[in-house]
């Protein structure tokens, strides 16, 4: 009886030892040497796996960072300069200054501004609505209001305003990962340079129609008149397909263009209220 038990113990121990020896040599032979800095960098990154850097998650980005020779073109929009500074310390490299950005919704087609001509009743998805029809207003470029962008945001930085039927971006939460930009089938959302006190001036319209039809569809549409173009002292405004565009990297926030716009398509947000002119359009999407 006892000899059977002892024999079993001896046999199993011998087998275990043999397996251990084999495994040891196999492990030596097929050892994967990973740069320990990858783990360190991954820990320094925010861990949101949002893909805002252009890679499939924080670890993939960390691997790229460790392999890279300079930080040119590599940036974590979520962590910003802080995180990139930490990573630079770990990897002993010079951080590259990247301007912080913020997402901006370039449509102001509220029910007041753009009259509803039909009612969408299909699957609640902007991509589906976009593939089916032009939209519930006369404008075939504007926001469809199903909230694909809000669903794509991983940082709770967006919500749909039930009154304006437009998405609203919370500047303090937005990390400019670009998920909403990709989610929007109509390319309405743009990543723009983040200015001091979150001030912004932009053309809140993407309508490429000629002036007449654009204005008919929406009171605050850009009609492509080009008045803003003429007053801009910094050549920040360009005009293409009846649509003006303010380049946020060139714009110095001088506010000369906004009063020129006959339809109020240029929004000024975050500025102190001027005495002479009430900042009426700012109220709409400043929230």
């Amino acid at each position, binding site marked *: 009886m006892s000899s059977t038990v002892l024999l079993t113990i001896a046999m199993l121990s011998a087998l275990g030892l043999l397996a251990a020896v084999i495994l040891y040599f196999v492990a030596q032979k097929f050892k994967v040497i990973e740069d320990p800095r990858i783990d360190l960098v991954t820990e320094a990154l925010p861990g949101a796996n949002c893909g805002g850097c252009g890679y499939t998650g924080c670890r993939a980005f960390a691997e790229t960072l460790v392999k890279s020779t300079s930080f040119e073109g590599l940036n974590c929009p979520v962590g910003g300069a802080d995180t990139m500074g930490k990573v630079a310390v770990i990897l002993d490299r010079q951080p590259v200054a990247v301007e912080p950005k913020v997402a901006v919704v370039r449509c102001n087609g509220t029910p007041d501004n753009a009259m509803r001509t*039909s009612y969408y*009743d299909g699957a609640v*998805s902007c991509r589906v609505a976009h*593939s*089916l029809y032009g939209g519930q207003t006369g404008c*075939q470029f504007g926001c469809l209001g199903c909230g694909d962008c809000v669903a794509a945001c991983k940082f709770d930085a967006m919500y749909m305003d039930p009154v304006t039927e437009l998405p609203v971006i919370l500047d303090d939460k937005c990390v400019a990962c670009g998920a909403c930009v990709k989610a929007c089938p109509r390319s309405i959302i743009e990543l723009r340079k983040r200015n001091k006190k979150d001030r912004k001036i932009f053309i809140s319209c993407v309508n490429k129609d000629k002036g007449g039809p654009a204005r008919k569809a929406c009171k605050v549409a850009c009609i492509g008149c080009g008045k803003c173009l003429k007053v801009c002292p910094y050549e920040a405004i360009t005009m293409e397909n009846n649509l003006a565009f303010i380049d946020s990297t060139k714009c110095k926030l001088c506010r000369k263009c906004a009063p020129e716009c006959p339809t109020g398509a240029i929004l000024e947000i975050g500025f102190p209220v001027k005495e002479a002119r009430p900042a009426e359009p700012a109220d709409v999407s400043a929230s």
Partner: protein
Amino acid sequence: LGNNLKRTIKVFKTFPKGGIHPPENKLTAAKPTVILPVPAQVTVPVSQHIGAPATPVVEKGAVVRAGQLIAQAKGFVSANIHSPVSGKVSKIDTVADTTGYKQTAIVIDVEGDDWVETVDRSSGLVKEITLTREQIIERCQLCGLVGLGGATFPTHIKLTVPAGKTCDTVIINGVECEPYLTSDHRLMLEKGAEVLTGVEIIRKALGVGRVIIGIEANKPDAISNLTELAREFEGITVQPLKVKYPQGGEKQLIKACTGREVPSGGLPLDVGVVVQNIGTAFAVYEAVQKNKPLVERVVTVTGKSVKNPGNFRVRIGTPVSALIEAAGGMPDDTGKVVNGGPMMGKALAVTDIPVTKGTSGIIIFPADVSKRAEVLPCIRCGKCSSACAMGLEPWLISVLAQKGMFEKAEQEKITDCMECGACAYTCPAKRPLLDYIRLGKSTVIRMARERITK
């Protein structure tokens, strides 16, 4: 007893897999086609077919006659566009089409009704086919013929059998399985002889011996009319079919009539068949025998709330609002106006859009029945899979499309879907299955095309 039953109950042919039975609601089946007067202005879009839009060949201010070429086909898959009226081109501009998206259209102010001389406007039946095969195909191309069943694929391409393929059977689609629609039904009754001559021309163009005209059993008058007329023609048989949606789908109709199955991703020609619609056969007759381009078609305007539902022969470019006016005006409680059949058609965003070559019907639904029901979670009951005539799993592919898993959707054969809508119709949870499948299908097709060009 079993044999007796079989003898007494006539068993019609149909396709074996899936299918549904929506209420037929053929309110206008007994309404003779009314010819609508020419409107004061027509809007003719340059893209009324699958493929590249045609290029306008008239300028603003040009005086055109009915039947005159106003836009030239561009590229292989494209179709000519002719002026449906005589008058003056008032502008060439972008106007909203059925989807609300803007596209180029030629707007003509109507003056009189003056046709180009080459068009034979007489009503007499011309039976003798004098043109050769090549001439028939060329005529179809010149006259801008497209499939009138709904897909608007250029007819001349379908009549040209590519090298390496053979065609032994022509199937004429007189199924009209969509509820409400009756335009093909009326054509078969009123223009039976012309339709059959058109069928004969199609047969000659393809050089085929056998022609089967598939008609569902809910149109006994059309079946008897065409059967009677077909006695004069050799090789043309009328095949009554069991009523089942979507029997009008090419692949279903081929299976029902011949028992052949088109392989996944294949075309009817892979099993030696070409399918043409009844409306197309009539248009072929008019083009070949009368040299008349495709400038008018029959449109069913119907709906339970409509005062005078009917079938109307209208010029292309006539505003849909004029059609609704002719049917007794827009009912006050209208919630949705659908372009096409109730199963596959799409709701219109605006009604001041023109009738195009593909407009088969305008259906008006009251507000209380037009709204979609609340969407509930999928419980995997499998009703959609049983209803799918293509043997797909709609619940799965719609979710794959919704989640953006397009590679997986491609493996699940999302491109075999013909968008008949039987799945969404049967879904007890009222899930928008087809909405997502359409999105997925178009994305997968685009991805596949990009792969080829890369």
